[in-house]
């Protein structure tokens, strides 16, 4: 076994990337729906499994470096697999297993030529995300980053015949490129005049405080555009509903995390200076993003748009964790920084699973009913019981309920907040409890959002007649959904093991780990700092819940069921009750809309009481469109009209332009 002994994890991960590219090409050449859905997508899932296993194996191991004989002359591609990369590769691999399996079922009705193209873009997208995570020089990073942006753009515009989808794709591409420019400039500043763009040089370049801050701000802006941090979030609620569901799941679950990876890589690994206000800035932005996202999610009526806003909220929470870690790290409280960073990474991993699950679940709903509007769904639990069960797991997880995974990471983050009064900065000490309260508000509201999401889609009576024909999910879809739901449960029930996985990352970035303290009272009990402060045992809680539920069912069956009878409901003076009289998504979200009306641009058309055919229309728009983006668009338009005046259409004038430029340059050079 000479071969095995020389096979490094980085070879395996790079091999998976090549394998994905080949699969994509095969799909492009085959253009056969059956072959692609039955073989290529499951094969892609296998690649994801291998990637996740290799990443898992290399966590905590030695750092692997490789130089590819590709790229430009004298500018080869550098790859590196360290703990941070490995953790995010694990996230990518583990979540995309489920999504690829699901895709195998989801795309079964798509015509071959469209599907061939989609399969190619899908696998290029996966491969480029993995390359982003492994890049060890700015050149490779930008190439992979742009490939990621372009392949996802084409995936978003799969249904490009619809004008709204083209528009959504354009907004996405625009924001992605504005962000990419900022990232490029960030790397430009960070190489510190060496002219060498490898990350190794950047680590050793000692920038002044000013230039470090410039770099950090550029990175926050550039990666923030991809992650959807306020006010660069606008593309998310447009692009996610436009994309096919597995693509939304990939983008929301995994691609947003590559931006988080970028922020962590730049701020904690590449930059050596650490200034406390960076963390405070990230914390503030994160809180605003989280609250904004969850409030907007509460008033949405399109299920995928709702999930997109929920992604904005979760990115906000992750950014809060990063901000907290940066603040603690700047004040040299590395143990606390490790706690905050662990919570952050944990939440990133959780979000990949739960948002992936929910997005592909909405895909099944869409497939079965053809409806995205919450107002036309309802009662699907009767027709799609398997999907309803799996989606319940995702909804509970994202609402942050124990014993599922969402709870653990948010709880850890709150622990980090509660331990902050040790900071040597009195204003911060006063403000951070407020921030903790805001975070709790955001997670409580996310519970509200999920009640609305799940309740309106699955519970109650079907609001449309067509919903009675909804069919349940097929085998591949069920496999994919089950994988992600299992992930949500296991990540929630065995937090100590997850923290042990995250330990190498915090060790690498902060020199501190959480694992030994977390596991101090055994693997059953999670203790972030000290046993007397706080500890949490999800497994015991889980067993208590299970026992409680079974006991209740038993009691109900035993003592109550005998006296159960079905009769007509009290009709309240309305002799004819229809399913459309149930509480709707709009009705459910109404309190939130009332409270936060100043932040939402609400337009409502309420019909008059005498209208024979009453029609109600309500819409909550993002005010930032009018306040920020439209002015920018108007200024751009004005400038371009001015530039347009240069265009005369006369060839002589054009020649004169280049002539004058030439003369000016010649005179300047002399």
């Amino acid at each position, binding site marked *: 076994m000479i071969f095995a002994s020389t096979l490094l994890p980085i070879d395996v991960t790079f091999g998976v990337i090549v394998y994905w590219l080949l699969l994509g090409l095969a799909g492009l050449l085959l253009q056969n729906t059956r072959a692609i859905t039955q073989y290529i997508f499951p094969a892609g899932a296998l690649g994801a499994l291998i990637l996740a296993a290799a990443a898992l194996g290399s966590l905590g191991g030695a750092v692997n470096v490789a130089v590819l004989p590709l790229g430009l002359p004298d500018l080869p591609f550098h790859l590196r697999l360290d703990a941070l990369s490995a953790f995010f590769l694990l996230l990518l691999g583990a979540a995309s297993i489920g999504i690829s399996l699901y895709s195998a079922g989801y795309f079964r009705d798509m015509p071959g030529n469209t599907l061939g193209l989609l399969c190619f873009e899908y696998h290029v997208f996966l491969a480029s995300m993995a390359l982003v995570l492994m890049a060890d020089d700015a050149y490779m990073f930008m190439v992979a980053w742009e490939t990621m942006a372009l392949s996802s753009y084409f995936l978003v515009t799969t249904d490009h015949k619809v004008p709204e989808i083209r528009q959504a794709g354009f907004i996405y591409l625009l924001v992605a490129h504005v962000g990419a420019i900022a990232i490029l400039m960030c790397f430009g500043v960070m190489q510190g005049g060496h002219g060498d763009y490898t990350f190794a040089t950047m680590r050793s370049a000692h920038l002044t405080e000013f230039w470090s801050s410039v770099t950090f701000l550029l990175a926050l802006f550039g990666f923030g555009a991809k992650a959807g941090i306020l006010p660069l979030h606008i593309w998310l609620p447009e692009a996610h509903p436009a994309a096919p569901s597995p693509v939304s799941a990939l983008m929301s679950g995994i691609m947003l995390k590559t931006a988080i990876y970028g922020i962590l890589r730049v701020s904690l690994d590449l930059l050596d200076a650490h200034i406390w206000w960076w963390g405070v800035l990230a914390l503030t932005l994160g809180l605003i993003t989280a609250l904004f996202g969850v409030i907007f999610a509460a008033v949405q009526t399109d299920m995928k748009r709702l999930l997109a806003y929920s992604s904005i909220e979760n990115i906000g929470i992750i950014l809060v964790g990063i901000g907290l870690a940066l603040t603690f790290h700047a004040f040299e409280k590395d143990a606390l920084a490790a706690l905050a960073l662990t919570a952050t990474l944990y939440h990133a991993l959780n979000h990949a699973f739960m948002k992936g699950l929910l997005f592909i679940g909405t895909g099944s709903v869409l497939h079965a009913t053809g409806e995205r509007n919450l107002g036309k769904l309802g009662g699907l639990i009767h027709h799609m019981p398997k999907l309803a069960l799996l989606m319940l797991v995702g909804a509970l997880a994202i609402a942050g309920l124990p014993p599922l995974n969402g709870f653990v990471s948010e709880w850890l983050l709150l622990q980090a907040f509660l331990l902050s009064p040790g900071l040597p900065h009195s204003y911060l000490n006063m403000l951070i409890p407020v921030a903790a309260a805001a975070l709790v508000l955001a997670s409580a509201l996310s519970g509200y959002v999920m009640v609305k999401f799940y309740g309106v889609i699955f519970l109650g009576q079907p609001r449309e007649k067509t919903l009675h024909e909804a069919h349940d999910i097929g085998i591949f879809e069920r496999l994919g959904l089950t994988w992600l739901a299992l992930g949500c449960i296991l990540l929630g029930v065995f937090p100590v093991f997850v923290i042990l996985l995250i330990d190498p990352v915090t060790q690498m970035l902060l020199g501190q780990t959480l694992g030994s303290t977390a596991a101090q009272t055994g693997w059953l009990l999670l203790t972030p700092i000290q046993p007397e402060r706080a500890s949490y045992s999800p497994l015991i809680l889980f067993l208590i819940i299970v026992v409680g539920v079974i006991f209740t069912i038993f009691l109900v069956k035993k003592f109550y069921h005998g006296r159960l009878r079905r009769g007509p409901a009290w009709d309240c003076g309305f002799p004819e009750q229809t399913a459309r009289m149930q509480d709707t998504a709009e009705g459910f979200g109404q309190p939130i809309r009332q409270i936060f009306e100043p932040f939402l641009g609400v337009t409502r058309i309420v019909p008059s009481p005498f209208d024979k055919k009453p029609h109600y229309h309500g819409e909550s728009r993002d005010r930032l469109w009018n306040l920020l983006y439209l002015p920018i668009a108007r200024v751009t338009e004005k400038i371009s009209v001015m530039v347009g005046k240069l*265009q*005369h*259409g*006369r*060839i*002589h004038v054009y*020649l*004169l332009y280049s*002539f004058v430029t*030439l*003369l000016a340059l*010649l*005179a300047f050079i*002399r």
Partner: protein
Amino acid sequence: MENFSGQLINLFAALLLLISFGMLSQRRVLSLINLFALQGLMLTISTVIVAYSSHQHHLYYSAALTLVLKVIILPWILHRLMRKLNVKWDIETLFNIPTTMLVGIALVVFAFNLAAPISMMGGAITKSTLGIAMASVLLSFLMMITRSKAVPQVIGFLAMENGLFFAATSATYGMPMVVELGIALDVLVGMFILGIFFFQIRETFDSLDLKHMEKLKED
């Protein structure tokens, strides 16, 4: 001998510049093509002299290439085009030739001024001709600006290439052979493509006058 060939190169360089001025003021398109061929001939002769006096053998190949391409093939293609397009006797109305000439003189002064520090550094026998080469590039450019018909503009473009070639010969004894071959091929292919464009332009606008292309502007 050295001095004599230096004088000869200067003479031909001066003739080159003179022809550039001639092209700037020539109104008949047919004569313009002949002037272009003549300029190519001057270029060939001066390259041969440089090759002979500096013992740079690859320059002989360049000279042969110039002779074949710029003195024979391109003028022939242009003549054929004129016949096919039926514009053999075309006369262009130029605006104010004396002003154009004055601008041209200013450009020559500028080019000489520009070339002075570079010529000081170079030790080549051709160092004093760099200014002339740059002047002829700029004059050809000026010619492209002042012309409104398509064919003279293309001739201006080709003449500019002549100037560049001369600059390369005079500054560094020519470019590497590969580059030169590449440029020659580019010029030839460019000529073919532009020839096709001529027909397309005429078909669309019923004329080769480029001022009609203003209509293509987007409002």
